[in-house]
């Protein structure tokens, strides 16, 4: 459905997307997980033809995005992190306006309204100004507006960012429903748990996919537990721990985070190493690993091999 080859985009010195190759199959949810600034949005913006890539190509159904932007645009929907709604138009006016941009007749749009209101439950609010909706409802309206023209490909950029858990679950239910209708969905997120609902997941870090596969296998590969130690002499502590624990150590300021499978054992171990090196421990506790930490862990593990 979507074929990306050698895709590269630079912003000055920084490489946002670094020679990416991947394909997305028809009718799947393709999740892209990565910390902020990893290039997820840039990638989606290139697929949706807002940004022009420096190198590489994107084809949707065999049609090149850059050569035939208008052909692609009719089949595609892109929903940015903050969907651009006309806040001074009502819910219904927004839907009609975006539908009209795709040359749908008023009658077609009206027919489609039932379905759209059905899954979004925005029906009762059809006369409300978009600016007066809550965050979750705005996000749903954004989705509805991008779905008026029944696209074949749906690109979602962190659609559930800043949305409450209930709305988030509802939002994913909608995505599954669309999937049932054969829509291909590419979704980016900063939450690993969300990515697990996709058919396939790519881990994106510094413009590259460091992993691509089924959510389960990626989950298994990641270490689940982590200890955070705050110390008074972080540099000495880092050097000493590195000797014993290898590359699973990440230091920021005077806190050191270490991946582990066996929390109790490692905790004792660390305490001993640090006291041998005469480093004072301010606190030591178990914390859930941050996505970025897991990524660094995977990369350092790869480099060690």
């Amino acid at each position, binding site marked *: 459905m979507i074929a990306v080859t050698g895709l590269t985009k630079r912003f000055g010195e920084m490489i946002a997307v670094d020679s990416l190759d991947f394909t997305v199959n028809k009718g799947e949810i393709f999740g892209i997980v990565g910390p902020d600034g990893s290039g997820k949005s840039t990638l989606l913006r290139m697929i949706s*033809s807002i940004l022009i890539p420096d190198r590489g190509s994107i084809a949707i159904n065999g049609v090149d995005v850059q050569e035939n932007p208008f052909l692609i*645009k009719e089949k595609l929907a892109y929903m940015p992190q903050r969907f651009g709604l006309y806040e001074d138009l009502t819910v219904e006016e927004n839907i*009609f306006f975006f539908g009209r941009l795709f*040359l749908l007749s008023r009658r077609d749009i009206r027919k489609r309204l039932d379905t759209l209101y059905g899954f979004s439950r925005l029906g009762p609010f059809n006369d409300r100004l978009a600016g007066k909706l809550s965050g979750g409802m705005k996000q749903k309206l954004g989705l509805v507006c*991008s779905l008026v023209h029944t696209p074949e490909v749906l690109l979602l950029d962190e659609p559930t960012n800043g949305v409450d858990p209930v709305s988030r679950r509802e939002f994913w239910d909608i995505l599954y429903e669309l999937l049932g209708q054969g829509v291909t969905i590419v979704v980016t997120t900063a939450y690993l748990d969300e990515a697990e609902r996709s058919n396939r997941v790519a881990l994106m870090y510094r413009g590259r996919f460091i992993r691509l596969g089924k959510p389960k296998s990626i989950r298994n590969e990641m270490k689940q537990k982590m200890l955070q130690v705050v110390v008074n002499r972080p540099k000495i502590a880092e050097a000493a721990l590195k000797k014993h624990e290898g590359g699973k150590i990440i230091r920021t300021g005077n806190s050191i985070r270490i991946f582990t499978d066996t929390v109790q054992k490692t905790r004792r171990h660390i305490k001993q190493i640090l006291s041998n090196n005469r480093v004072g421990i301010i606190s030591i506790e178990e914390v859930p690993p941050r996505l970025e930490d897991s990524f660094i862990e995977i990369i350092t593990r790869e480099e060690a091999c």
Partner: protein
Amino acid sequence: MKGFIRIPVLISMIKKEFAQVLRDNRMRGILFGPPIIMIIVFGYAVNMDVNSTDLAVIDEDKSSMSRGLIEKFTGSGYFTLYSYLHSEKELASQMDNGNVETFIHIKRGLSKNIKSGRTSEIQVIIDGTDSNRGAVISAYVNEIMQSYFIDKYLNRVKTVILLRSSGVAAGTPGVASGFVMSKGVRVVDRAYFNPTLLSKNYFLPGIIGFIVSLITIMLTAMSIVKERESGTMEQIIVSPIQPIEFILGKTIPFAMIGFIDMFVVTIITILWFDVSFKGNMLFLFFAAFFYILCTLAVGIYISTISRTQQQAMMSFFLFFIPAILFSGFAFPIYAMPETIQIITYVNPLMYFIIIIRGVFLKGVGFMVLWKELLVLVIIGITLLYLSARRLSRRME
């Protein structure tokens, strides 16, 4: 697919634009408020005419002739006698305070000298702080002197007029224009096109150009930048709308509003302020169409260089103020240095104001104004093409 404009898309753009403008309190305020307020403020407040000026007199002659002269002044309707003074020293303080603008010094022996056939002198000092006003008062003085001394003593009175700025010691000539009336010849002025020489006849038509520019540039720039600010621009870009459809959808509504505003303001100028309209209304609006092309182009251009509505506002003034200064709206172009005059040649507002004034006051039309119209057409189409291209490049 690409190339031709799809009317349904265009119509829904225009409808949406009107809905947004009419719903946004700030935008709705801009539509008709400022134009009407501006025309009314200018109509009443910007008045360069001198209707009344305070006069002080030193009358050393104290004859029936000198009293008659002073009565002639006060009876003219332009001068109000503020006080009689006794010395020039008093005058200095009165003028510095701004109590008195015009001062007449009639020397001892005026009537005696004239009656016995000798030349006599009358000194007039005018506050020249406001040079325009000073010149107007000076003209009034000359006229009154002329008509008072006409027939009998024509060649015997010498009026010395001194224009003086406050702060300069009394009696120091700023600009001195003295004259001796020559025998038998009398110059009678008559101004064509604006016979009463009222400044509103000159300014109000100019204001029409001013208002049309303000409204169309501002609305176009703001509404495009607003799309970018609120993120809707991205949705427009990913939709299959073509740049040309978007640009037309963004300009047609504001051109229409510009026309309506121009019509309202023109009607107020004619009916409320009694400015005579001698020309053809159709020709005026025909020319306005091409002028509005220029302003829409400027609005689009501003939208391509501004990211926020505040930036758009700042850039707007960057364009608007020079456009007004170099348009001949208030400051005559012939008085500018030649290098600066060149700037005015590329200023569409200059041509438009010439056309408005020509149609309003002279009643001329295409036969006389075709050159200005042609330049407007060329500038309008060129600017619109360039800025539309600039905007559509940013969209693709």
